[in-house]
């Protein structure tokens, strides 16, 4: 899983039938200080994350198939948690 910030939403009515039920969100990977790193991508939401939320995104197809109990879902990234608090040990 990675830390990411939800930057927006994507609507795509015409899409693979296995992707119909959940919202698609734009996730921007961030470092522990919240700074954007790398390219944003699209993730399926299962925790009602909102725009601006700091979240955990799981980015592996096998786990996506487990979450949706569907071996035919063409998906890798799923928003699996909304982060309330992040405590980092400063060394």
């Amino acid at each position, binding site marked *: 899983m990675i830390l990411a910030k*939800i*930057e*927006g*939403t*994507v*609507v*795509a*009515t*015409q*899409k*693979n039938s296995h*992707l119909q039920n959940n919202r*698609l969100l*734009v996730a921007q990977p961030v470092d522990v200080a919240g700074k954007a790193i790398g*390219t*944003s*991508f*699209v*993730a399926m939401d299962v925790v009602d994350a909102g*725009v*601006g939320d700091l979240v955990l995104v799981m*980015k592996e*197809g096998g786990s*996506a198939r487990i979450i949706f109990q569907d071996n*035919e*879902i*063409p*998906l*890798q*990234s799923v928003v699996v948690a909304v982060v309330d608090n992040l405590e980092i040990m400063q060394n």
Partner: protein
Amino acid sequence: MPQLGKVIGTIWGTSKYPGLEDAKIQLMQPIAADGKKTGEPIAVVDTIGAGPGETVLYITAYEAVIPYHRKMVPIDASIIGIVDTIDLRNAK
């Protein structure tokens, strides 16, 4: 994972790997959510019917073969949706 792309062309090839004869292949420019290009154009299999100019969702790696009606064929990127809107307005 999926990621975003823009269809910029179509590719035809008569002699293809067995099983891909009827695969529709598009040329697609990977983009970020704000539309910026994020790499070189790639060829993607299109099972949704996207047209040139359309913004699409695509997926790579093992999952790319899932939407195709045959399994043991070499597909590493495929279109899985056509984007209607990307809403970045209220991002803090």
